[in-house]
């Protein structure tokens, strides 16, 4: 049966719910795996491919068991060529499939950059909607895992600056599941950044779960004095910082953006309007990083409310350092607290 000639109805805005299951404690990686399996079950147009995603189950095991369960035509290894992985996904989407592709590590997505910028982001627009691109690119990103060169990049700013692509990144097990389901159900391309240092973090997950649509930030902790704005694996750093700050007498709010594009202005601006102070935390180099957009927006829109400059605690403006030096590069609780002190005494 032809997929293309099957009624090409757009997917429901929300993914269909899997059968309720009993609560289970699982890792973020396993939650992603579950989301893939559930999405493949729910919609036969969903196919998963990339390097080593088949028999091996991916180097982080996020696709573990999918090839065995769904067959080689639903989950398969590709030749080693990232531009053609994404290009192939684009062609499959033109025919009505919903590909989910894996880039093995963040830096190994760069070869697909032209396909991403010149086609993935533009095809729907180019064809006035005739060829939508319901494609998810999964990219493990970020550092702190002792990876050698090219294994710890954070490239969200490159993608977020490219109109036509949604960019999301989970920080919790629940969001990992739900955001990935939502990304796969989305009629638009989504770059799904997976915080690799959190792959092994565990939490309880009870399905079905719904955490919030793409485009909405989550308030992870409420506070009155200052808003910490973070995403991905900087969220735990922000939360830990808030805990320490509480001991110092500062009551911090912590936002987990979850979605960089679309950006949840409403939640972010409302929070800063409440607190009057904001600090952005991310791992990528600070200069022209995504934090610049956040700081610029907040500084402009909350101009009359801000009691201190919006500060950024980010990676340094250097090539990602080797394992033995990476702790100097990564935004630390100490650096966040230092920024909190500066903002609170402004």
């Amino acid at each position: 049966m032809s997929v293309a000639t099957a009624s090409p109805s757009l997917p429901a805005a929300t993914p269909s719910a899997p059968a309720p299951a009993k609560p289970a404690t699982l890792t973020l990686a396993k939650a992603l795996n579950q989301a893939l399996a559930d999405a493949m079950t729910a919609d036969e147009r969903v196919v998963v491919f990339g390097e080593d995603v088949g028999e091996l189950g991916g180097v982080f095991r996020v696709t573990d068991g999918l090839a065995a369960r769904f067959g080689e035509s639903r989950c398969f290894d590709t030749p080693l060529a990232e531009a053609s992985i994404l290009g192939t996904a684009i062609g499959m989407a033109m025919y009505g499939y919903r590909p989910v592709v894996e880039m093995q590590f963040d830096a190994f997505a760069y070869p697909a950059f032209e396909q991403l910028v010149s086609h993935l982001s533009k095809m729907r627009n180019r064809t006035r909607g005739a060829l939508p691109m319901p494609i998810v690119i999964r990219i493990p990103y970020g550092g702190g895992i002792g990876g050698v060169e090219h294994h710890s990049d954070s490239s969200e700013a490159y993608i977020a600056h490219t109109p036509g692509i949604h960019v999301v990144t989970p920080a919790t097990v629940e969001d990992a599941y739900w955001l990935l389901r939502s990304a796969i159900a989305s009629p638009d391309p989504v770059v799904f950044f997976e915080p690799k240092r959190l792959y092994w973090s565990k939490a309880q997950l009870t399905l079905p779960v719904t955490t919030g649509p793409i485009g909405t930030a989550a308030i992870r902790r409420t506070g009155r004095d200052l808003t910490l704005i973070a995403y991905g694996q900087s969220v735990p750093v922000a939360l830990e910082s808030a805990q320490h700050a509480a001991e110092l007498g500062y009551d911090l709010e912590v936002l987990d953006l979850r979605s960089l594009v679309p950006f949840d202005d409403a939640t972010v601006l409302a929070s800063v309007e409440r607190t009057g102070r904001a600090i952005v935390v991310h791992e990528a180099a600070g200069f022209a990083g995504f934090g610049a957009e956040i700081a610029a927006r907040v500084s402009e829109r909350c101009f009359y409310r801000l009691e201190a400059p919006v500060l950024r605690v980010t990676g340094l403006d250097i090539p990602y350092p080797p394992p033995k030096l990476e702790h100097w590069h990564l935004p630390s609780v100490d650096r966040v607290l230092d920024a909190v002190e500066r903002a609170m005494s402004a």
Partner: protein
Amino acid sequence: MTLLDLPLAATRGNPAAAASYWDTDPLRYLDEHGAPVEGGLRPAPDLLAGDRLLALYRALRLARAFDTEATALVMQGHLAVYPSSRGQEACQTAAALCLEPQDWLFPTYRDTAALAVRGIDPVEALTLLRGSWHCGYDSKRWRTAPQCTPLATQAPHAVGLALAAKMAGDPVVALCLLGDGATSEGDFHEACNSAAVYQAPVVFLVQNNQYAISVPLRKQTHALSLAGKGVGYGMPGVRVDGNDVIGLMHVLGEAMERARSGGGPTLIEAITYRIRPHTNADDANRYRDTSEVDLWLGRDPVDRLARYLTAIGHLDAGLDTAIGEEGAKYAAAMREELVREPEVDPADMFDHVFASPTPQLRAQRAMIEAEAAAVQRDGQQHDAAQGGQA
């Protein structure tokens, strides 16, 4: 000799051979003068049937008429840019006519004539080059991807679509058009390689028109054949005379059939020539002699079929004139539409970025609408003022 046994060109550079590159013998049915080649291709009888050949000829003339008119239009400022396919009409025609309705075509910026032959309205086909939108035809309805500009990037799309069709069990083939220069890009390689690994039903047709803008083929490859690249992919590679529409239809037909029946991809190199500059903005005198162009004018693909048809008694001056008039009518209709300023709507810029616009895009759309309204208001005031003066 079947096509697939085609001996590959020597693998090491031979300057003398390289100099006469386009004189080495590709497969063909008709020679330059329109006579069947001895020991040449042997197309099936239905391809050689008189009305089939006449239909091919009509298509060639249509492609020529389209290209000629588009060239005139761009000179007069009615298109933003036009990359002409003059001299490549046999490829343009065969690429469109070898397809079944369910097959997909992946064209480049140079293949607008092929779109016209496929039946796409010339105004829709020229939307990109006119500058009013990026793609003017319904890709899904016409099973024709938007014309692709970033070189070779459409090749993996064709592979993906073909793979999808194969998975779905549909008898669909994807035909991917490329230029000789584009074969140097990494995406070409990755696409060919994965097509072969997946045994995807895709055919790559390289229109080797000897130039990538100003860069001649000898600076693009050290091999004597682009078709030889098939070896590295475990894929049949075929070199064919790109100005012989009968030979092309035959070779393409075999490749399409093989793909359709599960035999995997084929790489076809069609030897042709870009008669005009790269685009209207190019000055070909900077890098090639007109004598070279003259040589190739003598190998004209349209003439060639005309001579053959005349020789076998299927074409006479009367019919030829009639066909010419069909082309003239087509061109006139095309012109009538294209000399008009196209209507564009700025809202289009926002409505297709995503399935539903983000809040930020809604705000930007509102800003533009306010600006547009102000412009219109000013215009009306201006009109009113003018009216008052009259």
